[in-house]
């Protein structure tokens, strides 16, 4: 899995390619933490290239969302969620805990 981040004026875009499981989720957590540890809490996660996500990846998402939403200082938004990954989010009851966008441009515009 590869994770890249892009910093914008109002927030950050994080993009992952590949499978996110217990082996690779720590890489995603590290990138998410590196953003929030610098005091930036508005993040869009572009999931276009995420082929697979287990509960290890979901743990990173919920943990980051808790950090971002604390004191209403920001939010982790999800964009372009593939059907297979959406099914896992739905099963975990995560769909109502995130703003989910089909269009990446629209998500970034909400930063």
């Amino acid at each position, binding site marked *: 899995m590869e994770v890249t981040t892009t910093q914008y004026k109002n927030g950050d875009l994080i993009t992952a390619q590949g*499978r996110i*499981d*217990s*082996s690779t989720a720590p890489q995603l957590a590290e990138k998410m933490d590196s953003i929030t540890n610098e005091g930036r809490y508005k993040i869009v996660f572009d999931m276009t290239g995420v082929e*697979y996500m*287990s*509960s*290890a990846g*979901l*743990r990173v998402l*919920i*943990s980051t*969302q*808790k950090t971002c*939403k604390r004191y209403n200082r920001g939010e982790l938004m999800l964009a372009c969620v593939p059907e*297979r990954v959406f*099914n*896992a989010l739905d*099963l*975990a*009851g995560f769909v109502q*805990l995130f703003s989910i966008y089909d269009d990446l441009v629209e998500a970034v515009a909400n930063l």
Partner: protein
Amino acid sequence: MVESTPEKHSAKESPSRITLPARFASLDSVRDFVHQAAEECGMGHKTVCEVELAVDEAFTNIIEHSYGGESQEQIECICRQTNDLLVVVLKDCGTPFDPTVVPEPDVGANLEKRKVGGLGMFFMNQLMDEVRYSFTSGPGDRKNCNALTLVKRKEC
């Protein structure tokens, strides 16, 4: 023995098996292995994905709880097809660990109350038709072996 299931089915083929190190890097291999078995079983794409996810969660749980983290030990995965079932058995010889007694998370909780972990067993229960645990003696003088059986029915 764990491989004898209560279902009254005769196996169409002999079981396929793979033994992998108890490391997270093995997850790709175990998912690919059960993916192939589920496809050979004639399951549709969505069902194949569900089996892959459930087995990933089970394998991860064994590493984390039975072996207490990544180790040099091994985990065996056995896939057996019957007329309308795929039976996946994961065997390890770590600490006795029965995941079926783990309490389920509250998936309806709001963000503040939502716990970060605990989804693995919930996923297994939701995605598979049956999840059974048994404690068994292992090969040779190995004792304290766990066997987790995950059963998926083919779509009708």
